[in-house]
């Protein structure tokens, strides 16, 4: 194994970029939905729950196809985005980020929801008696106490996004430098005669990346647990 080739560097950089943007997109949506599912009873809760988990169960290709229908240049959402924001998703890295965000969303919501459910609500009541309004309690008590779950969910979803293949290739195809992320590059090399060595190197890279994400998530979680529950 020698230094990374430009193709590998490009695939790695693109994967990281797509992964980071995917969590940046999904986090602001996942937190309120997780809190809603953890704390509130409302009509249609089971439906929302089902929709959130759908990408986890649906074949990724089907998810990718749905994204294409919805966010393609002629799709309702895609046309609107292009007209009003000048944003094109189909066959662009931005689309890869959206696909990764959708695929990682259930994992993120689940991790956050579990940690919100574990919060002792009596502590929030105590904060109210001390003068904190609901938004303040959310910002100064609920969010910090849910932080371990938020971080775990983010890392999990990031790792899922980096490794996302089926929905991505369906939605944004395989365009070198634009949408050819690590798993798509591996697949491409396997389709090329004599590409196995390159595929193997990229696979090793993927292993390193995944391990790093898991170790980082474990370390962060432990540090937070120590802070909350003592040594």
């Amino acid at each position, binding site marked *: 194994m020698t230094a990374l080739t430009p193709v590998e560097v490009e695939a790695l950089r693109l994967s990281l970029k797509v992964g980071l943007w995917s969590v940046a997109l999904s986090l602001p949506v996942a937190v309120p939905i997780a809190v809603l599912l953890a704390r509130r009873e409302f009509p249609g809760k089971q439906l929302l729950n089902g929709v959130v988990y759908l990408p986890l169960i649906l074949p990724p290709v089907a998810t990718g196809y749905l994204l294409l229908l919805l966010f393609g240049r002629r799709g309702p959402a895609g046309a609107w985005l292009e007209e009003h924001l000048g944003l094109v998703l189909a066959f662009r890295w931005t689309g890869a980020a959206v696909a990764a965000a959708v695929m990682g969303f259930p994992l993120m919501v689940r991790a956050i929801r579990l940690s919100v459910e574990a919060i002792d609500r009596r502590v929030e009541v105590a904060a109210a008696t001390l003068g904190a309004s609901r938004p303040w309690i959310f910002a100064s008590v609920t969010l910090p106490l849910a932080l371990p779950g938020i971080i775990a969910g983010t890392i999990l979803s990031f790792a899922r996004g980096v490794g996302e293949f089926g929905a991505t290739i369906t939605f944004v195809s395989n365009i070198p430098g634009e949408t050819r992320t690590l798993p798509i590059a591996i697949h491409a090399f396997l389709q090329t005669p004599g590409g196995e060595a390159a595929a193997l190197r990229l696979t090793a890279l993927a292993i390193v990346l995944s391990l790093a994400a898991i170790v980082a998530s474990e370390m962060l979680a432990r540090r937070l647990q120590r802070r909350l529950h003592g*040594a």
Partner: protein
Amino acid sequence: MKLDVDVARKLGAFRIDAQLSCEGGLLALFGPSGAGKTSLVNLIAGLLRPDRGRVAIDADVLFDSKFGIDVPVHRRRIGYVFQEPRLLPHLSVRHNLLYGRWFCPASARYTRFAEIVELLGIAPLLKRRPALLSGGEKQRVAIGRALLASPRVLLMDEPLTSLDAARKEEIYPYVERLRYEAKVPIVYVSHSIEDVMRLATTVAFIENGRITACGPVDDVLSRPDPSHPRPAAGAVFDAVVVGHDEEFALSALAFPGGELRVPRLDLPKGSAIRVRIPARDVVLAIAPPVGLSTLNVFRGEITELTAGEGAIAEARIRLEGAYLLAHVTRKSIAALDLAPGREVFALVKSIAFDSRSVGGRRTEFIRPAPAG
């Protein structure tokens, strides 16, 4: 500051309908488990919404069903110390203490950080996280946190029940100091007569969601119960150590009804002490007793006699300047022809006392004086 409460609320089959008013000092809300103590306190704090009624601090109405006023919890400025400490686990002790201060307008702040930290003896804990504190330490921080929000009323819901005896002893002195040093009324929920006797200036009995008696501690505790005799009934006085008899190792205590002699107390003359004489340890005689070893005998007059269906009745005896409470059997009442207005001699078998309730020095909390 004066707290006025008149609230009703139905909770399933249970109904709370209570009126009370508290101005300074410590009001003990005393009653058995399930009497509605915590619910009443939650109604005051705004954690539970009354079906009907009114809650006000001075002229500031916090709840009034007639006018549709319901100030949300976080704007009531009512401090609440819960049974469990409920500290914010992600913040250090210092930031827990300062949490409520943020929300209190600067002009309304009357507690100072350094003073409260000193009062509760929590300076060494400031940098620690709640998870690393003992139960007693946590509860002290919870009290400090409530005070530093500069509340207009402080509610304490059995803050000592989750603690063992040693931890309780650790907290008592702080609550006692609070009673004198906090400028606000304290409503203190308890089902322990020791707590009431030791801490309260006024006491309200609550049973089945209703306040059955309310008034100064010595008055209410020595009043016979109209429904049935309570095992915890007894008379409470503030007394002063007036002298020591070194030869027989006795101390003399002056109280409004006369002088009590108890085993030598390790207290200087002039020490204030709170004394309780349990009703079950008072014996009545219709003639001056002769040939008894009892040291403490008081001449008095029966003012009230309350008998129910059971064997035991409660008698209230007026001494010169105080009342005693005695448990006597209905059989004795018949045999001795006891009735209101009858002159009797009350023989006191035991005395419980507690100097720390007033002074702050070390003695045993309860040390019954032997028969004589």
